[in-house]
Structure formats: structure tokens, C-alpha cells
């Protein structure tokens, strides 16, 4: 297997991690919003920020894959 292939697998693994993380954030945010609709705005903005943090880690992986591939 070439280094490009390994880089592609790495990018895929990073995507799985980010998917799990953002999925959990999104699911919990939805539940919280359904329970307390009046907190909708605040929950949404903090969910976005948390999603950005999770995504950043995945993007580090993608960038490494870019550099290798």
C-alpha cells in the first residue's frame, strides 16, 4: 500500500471521528431544544462552537492527509 493510500485511510478515520462527535453534539442539542424551546438560541450557538472544536481535530487529520497525499 502506498503512502497516499494510507493518507486516504487516515482522512477517512478522521471523518468517522468527527461524524461521531458532531452527531452526539447535534443529537443532544436537539433533545435539549425540544425540552426547553425557550433556550433555543443559546443552545444552538454553543452547539455550533462545540461542533467547531470537534471538527478542528478532524481537520488536523485531513490536513495531514493532504500533505501526504
Amino acid at each position, binding site marked *: 500500500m502506498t503512502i497516499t493510500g494510507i493518507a486516504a485511510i487516515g482522512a477517512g478515520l478522521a471523518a468517522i471521528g468527527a461524524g461521531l462527535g458532531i452527531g452526539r453534539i447535534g443529537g443532544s442539542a436537539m433533545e435539549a431544544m425540544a425540552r426547553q424551546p425557550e433556550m433555543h438560541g443559546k443552545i444552538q450557538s454553543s452547539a455550533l462552537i462545540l461542533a*467547531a472544536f470537534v471538527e*478542528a481535530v478532524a481537520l488536523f487529520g485531513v490536513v495531514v492527509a493532504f500533505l501526504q497525499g
Partner: protein
Amino acid sequence: MMTLNTLKKRLFFTLFIAVFSFGFASSEKETEGDKEFNPKEMILHHVKDAYGMHIIDINGHPISIPLPVILWTDEGLTTFMSSEFHHDYNGEVIVEKNGQRFVNFHEKVYVLNEGESEVKFDEDHHLINAERPIDISITRNVFMMWVSITVLLLLFISAARRYKKSEEYVPSGIASFVEPLIVFVRDEIARPMIGESKYKRYMPFLLTIFFFIWINNIFGLIPILNGANLSGNIAFTFTLAVLTFIITTVSGNKNYWKHIFWMPGVPVPMKIFLMPIEIIGMFVKPISLMIRLFANITAGHVIILALMSLIFVFKTVAIAPVSVAFSLFITVIEIIVTAIQAYIFTILSALYFGMATEEEHH
């Protein structure tokens, strides 16, 4: 009736984009000529900075806006227009100026060594007989940055003028467009993150990065500009992140530094253990800002172009509807992402400023 009209407009708009992006993609193939289509090369070439704004190919003849190439070499300042390379980026066309020979190799200008008349490569396809001069050219990204600065200045100066006229001005025209956005940045980003007493000092910076990132993200999505990928350029995001880092560090108060070097409320071994982590954290925050914006915008461009490349990889027009539909879908998502990434960058900067200026509370 009203909804039907808007629906019609939207359908027309969608079709327009679909047809337009299709034409955009087909233009990419003709530059490749008879060679095997290489999506990786096409995408990387598109995402990178370039000398000259390539707009469109008509019958295999590329049309582009030439931009000045400004170099500082051993012989002093050398300038010429990028059109002298005749759209070559494989180091084949040689431009002679001041007795020196210049080539454009993968959108980087090299100066050939004394006495060399053509480029030579080693096995890894690297140049061996040429060197990089100091390059301060007006590239595609620099040009687009100036365009976006001009647009922002026109927009905001004309809006500010209207407010100057009278104190109790009801916004109209451009002002009614920018006022909700500015109020959004103030009430949703600066106030909750930094705090009521200190947010005013940081408003100019927050507003500037928010609008600057947003408008550059949007410009990157316009196909006719060939997606000058400015906010997907690591140097651009690096500069913005460094500005955030400097402001955070300069405005850090005693409480902030205490949390970094001698974390209060934990036992002494833990304090020593936490110190290096917090110091690394200080630098990781701006680095993650930099990588996040760069990777998000670049990934968006790469996905759109990769979907378009599918048509040429499979060499059939049957895949075109799928490819166009998907890339249209991604383009619409990217339009949302332009705003979200500008929002995230601004709100995280505000969060870091808030952490730096937070007072001790016991």
C-alpha cells in the same frame, strides 16, 4: 401567486447555476488537451495561488486577466506581466528580463541559474538548475484581497455616512443591510463572550474579521473569478490567527496569566503538571483557528471540483446530471458554511479575548 413567482425565480436561478457550473467544468478539460485527465492536478492548481486571473477557456483558448509579477533578484527589481508566461506553468515558457531567465513552474516563478537555457528536473520532478527570487507579485489572491477590501470600504463608509447625517437615523439602503449584521456581532458574539464592561474595545477587530472572512469566503465561491481561494490560503488565515493571538496576549490580565502558570484551586503537583499544558494551549488556540478556516474552505472547493471531475474521470455524459446535482447541493451548503466559518472564527476570537480579560471571582 407570490410564492409561485418566487418558486419560479428560484428554479431559474438553480438551473442557471447548474448550467453555468457545467460550462465551468467543461472548460477545465480543454486546457488538459489530449492528455489523460488528472483530477488531482486540476484541483490542486485551482486551490493554489496563481499569477494572473484565469477566467474561462473559449475553444481551448484561455482568457485571463494578467497581473504584475514583481521580483527582487540579484540584479535588483524586475517586473513584468504574468501574460508573458502564456498560461504556462510547467516551466516551458522562458521570459527574459534584465539578462535573467524566468520560468513559471507550478505557479511559482523561478530564476534560472547563469548560462542555463532550459529547466532541468531530477527524478522527483523538482527543479535543479533554478532558484526562487524574493517574490512580491500581485498574485490572484492579493488582487482578490484588494477587491474585497474595496467592496468592504465602499459598503461601510457609505453606510456610516448615513448615520453621520442625523442622530436618530432610521436605517435604509445599505445601512439597513449592515445594521442587523453589526448588531448581531455585538449582541450575539461580543457581549456574551467578552462581557458587558469590556466588549467595546474589541468590537472594531471582531467586526473587521467577521466581514473580511465572510466576504472572502463568498468571493471564493464565485465561479467566474475562478474561485480565488483566498480564505483557503494558509498564509491568510495565519495572519488573522496571529492578530487574534497578539490581542489575546496583550490584553491578558493578571488572572489570565495566573491560570496559565499557576492554576489556582488545584494541589501543587497538579499546578506543575498543568503549566506546560496551558502554555501549549496558548499556542494551539490560534493554530486551530488557522487550520479550521483554511481546511474548511479548501475542503469545500476540493469537494465541488472533485464532483465535477467525476464526469471526466468516467468519460461519460451520463454521470453529468448526478455530478452537477451533487455539486449544486454542496455549493448551497458551502454558502451556509461561508457565514458559519466567519461566525466561528469571530466567536472563538471573542471567547479568547473574554478568557484573557476575565476578572477573578470568589
